[in-house]
């Protein structure tokens, strides 16, 4: 009997009214059914061991890349459904498709999921898949750390995503400005979920940054000097360094908010002279480099895709590298443009307005360089190139409106309006998402060994791009009409109705594009178009010299690199046989063993985070002890690596036709 009130209390905490809406319960049931089906399937086909050995405990960068990609696609779906719900709500004035509370939750998770759990893993997927292969490495610098990063990301994503059925979603926007995100205005566990999930994923992200920075700096094949690595590897290098210095301020901003909420500190509170604006400051010290963390890899992808499909070397390699470096440095000095309206004064505003505009210069240089790369080439419009061709006209609009936003007094009129919404979707969708999708289609054969169907890919692209323009062009005009972001609905008579209507239609068109893409993937899996050569696009860089998918050890023999587009030069000079091995040249290869430590460590973080979310400190301490235990195990464990013998390598390579006779 004494247990009863305790259980009631627990149930109330786990299932507050906001998670007991019929649609959420419906989704819960659907997910439960899907999970049971997956478990039954795995048990029936006896694949648990396979799943554990081949995927969950893997430290192979290629497999980790694939897992990142799949997770990112699932999150793209989740964030996309959120977007469609938002647009459905706004299709006409005074709609009550959702309550205001639910709308707040949906736009918050839309932003959070899309930035942190869709775009970031998509980028890491491409890094993992392509970078080691491009620079002639056997793996990343720290394979176990790489697995830790992935699992921290994955559990962070799970943490955020369970919030909508257990405890309640965050509802303070993806920036979560205090004091609205403080306990006084935002009781409940939603904000805790936000803080903890980003914190957990953020640790993994910093680890990834360290990993790829060291990988590109230290694991390049002999002869591959920094002036010879592909631009995508450069973009990985620079993105990593951005991550290193952008994420700690986020860690601090989230951490201090957590101290406020859970441990009663007074950083950003209304009372005790807290200063909420400091959060905005710290958040955007992270937030601005973050958008360049997202866009630089896209620039890198395009710098690979354009030369390949134009049959020409990249125009102005040095300028491309210098502009990447310039963008990365400048991006640390522009964050105030996210709050020109917070009264920092004309001196500060002018400084940051100017620094923001300066970024347009290197970006503009890149745009022209891609066009000049195509100039005098032979452009094949395959799907990866198609995304790039959609990118140029789209991104230039986003970049241009970015310059408009940097004009400080003009920004006083744009800020927080739909003009801003249109702008950043223009750069993030038109830049990052087009970029990573281009990269996905481009490296897909390298990941899986089969190509995605071209025709369906074209259709997916067309729907996506048309939907994109239809969604976001009207939003620029909505901004001029004074419509502000995050309004859960709006009254009629302000002239907003027609534009909102078209915007919603566009969003659905984009949704169709995404469905076609999913269909494309599934159809191509069932009817695989095998890539037997390893070089389906007539590529230029080292990853195309390998079979698709690359064997576990990547390179049977680490190549010696002599020029920038090494594989292309080899093909031109008829030296492609150099990649073949013979009995004399092959050596045994040592590779790290799989280990369950990463997933267990991330699990411990997850358990501890749940404890923090619900303020069950015993559980948080338990999770913390788990983290310590996993780390201790990791420190004392004997990581003797496994050896892949000469015979195995010879056998594998012979099957791929890569042994000299």
């Amino acid at each position, binding site marked *: 009997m004494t247990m009863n009130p305790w259980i009631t209390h627990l149930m109330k905490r786990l299932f507050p009214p906001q998670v007991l809406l019929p649609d959420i319960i419906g989704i819960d049931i659907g997910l439960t059914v899907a999970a049971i089906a997956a478990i039954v399937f795995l048990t029936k086909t006896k694949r648990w061991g396979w799943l554990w050995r081949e995927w969950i405990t893997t430290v192979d960068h290629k497999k980790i890349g694939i897992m990142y990609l799949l997770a990112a696609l699932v999150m793209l779906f989740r964030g996309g459904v959120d977007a469609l719900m938002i647009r459905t709500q706004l299709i006409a004035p005074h709609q009550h498709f959702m309550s205001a509370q639910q709308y707040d939750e949906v736009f918050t998770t839309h932003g959070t999921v899309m930035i942190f759990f869709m775009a970031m893993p998509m980028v890491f997927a491409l890094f993992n898949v392509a970078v080691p292969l491009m620079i002639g490495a056997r793996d990343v610098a*720290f394979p176990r750390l790489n697995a830790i990063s992935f699992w921290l990301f994955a559990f962070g994503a799970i943490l955020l995503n369970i919030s909508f059925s257990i405890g309640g979603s965050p509802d303070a926007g993806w920036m979560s400005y205090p004091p609205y995100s403080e306990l006084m205005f935002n009781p409940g566990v939603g904000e805790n979920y936000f803080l903890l999930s980003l914190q957990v994923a953020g640790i993994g992200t910093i680890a990834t940054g360290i990993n790829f920075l060291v990988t590109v700096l230290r*694991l390049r094949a002999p002869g591959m000097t920094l002036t010879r690595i592909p631009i995508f590897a450069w973009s990985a290098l620079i993105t990593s360094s951005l991550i290193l*210095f952008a994420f700690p301020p986020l*860690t601090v901003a989230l951490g201090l908010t957590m101290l406020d909420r859970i441990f009663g500190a007074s950083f950003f509170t209304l009372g005790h002279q807290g*200063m909420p604006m400091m959060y905005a400051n710290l958040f955007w010290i992270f937030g601005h480099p973050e958008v360049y963390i997202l866009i630089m890899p896209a620039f890198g992808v395009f710098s690979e895709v354009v030369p390949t499909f134009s049959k020409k070397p990249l125009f102005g390699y040095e300028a491309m590298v210098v502009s990447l470096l310039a963008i990365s440095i400048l991006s640390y000095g522009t964050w105030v443009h996210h709050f020109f309206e917070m009264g920092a004064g004309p001196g500060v505003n002018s400084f940051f307005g100017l620094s923001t505009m300066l970024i347009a210069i290197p970006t503009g240089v890149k745009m022209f360089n891609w066009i000049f790369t195509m100039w005098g080439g032979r452009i094949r419009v395959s799907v990866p190139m198609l995304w790039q061709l959609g990118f140029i006209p789209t991104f230039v609009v986003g970049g241009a409106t970015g310059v408009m936003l940097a004009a400080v007094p003009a920004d006083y009129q744009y800020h927080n309006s739909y003009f801003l919404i249109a702008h950043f979707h223009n750069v993030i969708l038109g830049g990052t998402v087009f970029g990573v999708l281009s990269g996905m289609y481009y490296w897909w054969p390298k990941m899986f060994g089969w190509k995605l169907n071209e025709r369906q890919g074209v259709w997916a692209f067309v729907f996506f791009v048309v939907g994109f323009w239809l969604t976001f062009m009207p939003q620029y005009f909505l901004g001029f009409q004074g419509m502000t972001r995050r309004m859960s609905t709006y009254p009629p008579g302000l002239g907003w109705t027609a534009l909102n209507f078209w915007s919603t239609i566009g969003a659905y068109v984009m949704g169709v594009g995404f469905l076609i893409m999913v269909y494309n993937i599934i159809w191509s899996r069932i009817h695989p178009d095998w890539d037997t050569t390893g070089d389906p696009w007539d590529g230029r860089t080292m990853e195309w010299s390998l079979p698709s998918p690359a064997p576990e050890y990547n390179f049977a023999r680490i190549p010696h690199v002599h020029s920038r587009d090494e594989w292309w030069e080899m093909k031109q000079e008829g030296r492609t046989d150099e990649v073949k091995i013979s009995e004399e040249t092959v050596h045994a290869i040592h590779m790290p063993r799989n280990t369950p430590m990463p997933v267990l460590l991330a699990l411990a973080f997850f358990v501890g985070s749940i404890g923090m979310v619900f303020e069950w400190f015993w559980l948080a301490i338990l999770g913390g002890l788990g983290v*310590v235990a996993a780390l201790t195990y990791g420190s004392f464990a004997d990581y003797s690596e496994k050896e892949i013998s000469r015979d195995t390598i010879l056998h594998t390579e012979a099957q791929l036709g890569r042994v000299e006779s």
Partner: protein
Amino acid sequence: MSTVTETHRSAARPPEFEDTHESIRILGFWIFLTTDVVLFGSLFSVYAVFRNRVALGPTPHQLFAMGPVLAETLILLTSTFTCSLSLYAARSDKLKGAVAWLTATLLLGASFVFLEIREFVGDVRAGHTWHQSAFLSGFFTLVGTHGSHVTVGIAWAIMLVLQLMSRGLTVTNRRKLYTFTLYWHFLDIVWIFLFTVVYLLGIA
């Protein structure tokens, strides 16, 4: 084991860098430290901005007692000295010396943490919790983050001592000791700035 020692004696390079993979790990650890630089930079910025926001709580002047802080500083400076001697001993292939100096380091670190906790407990007993003002929040968090870093360092040192005693000066253990000294010296640098910016300028 023995081959490593011999190559070390003849080579110009210290043993931590002989092995390619271990040298890569040292680079990775350096990079990790640079992220910590920015982390502490952010916390310092919070403290600097919040310094005058004392609300009804004490000002820095009223809060700080310099005696214990000076003691903490001297202890930490000594500990980084013993820490560097531990690496020196390891490089001279003196396992016992390395372990002894490392133990001294972790004991000094523990006494530092003890003094700091005592200071905090005293403040809280006097009613100056971090709830009281933004300044106190910034102060406790900045100093506390450093303190928790030191605590992690102590746990790490304990494990390192155990590994050194059980496995000796292997290539891996040399690298671990090297990265540990990097970490410890880095914490000392952070403390120097804490001591200056928080305490000295607080009572100046």
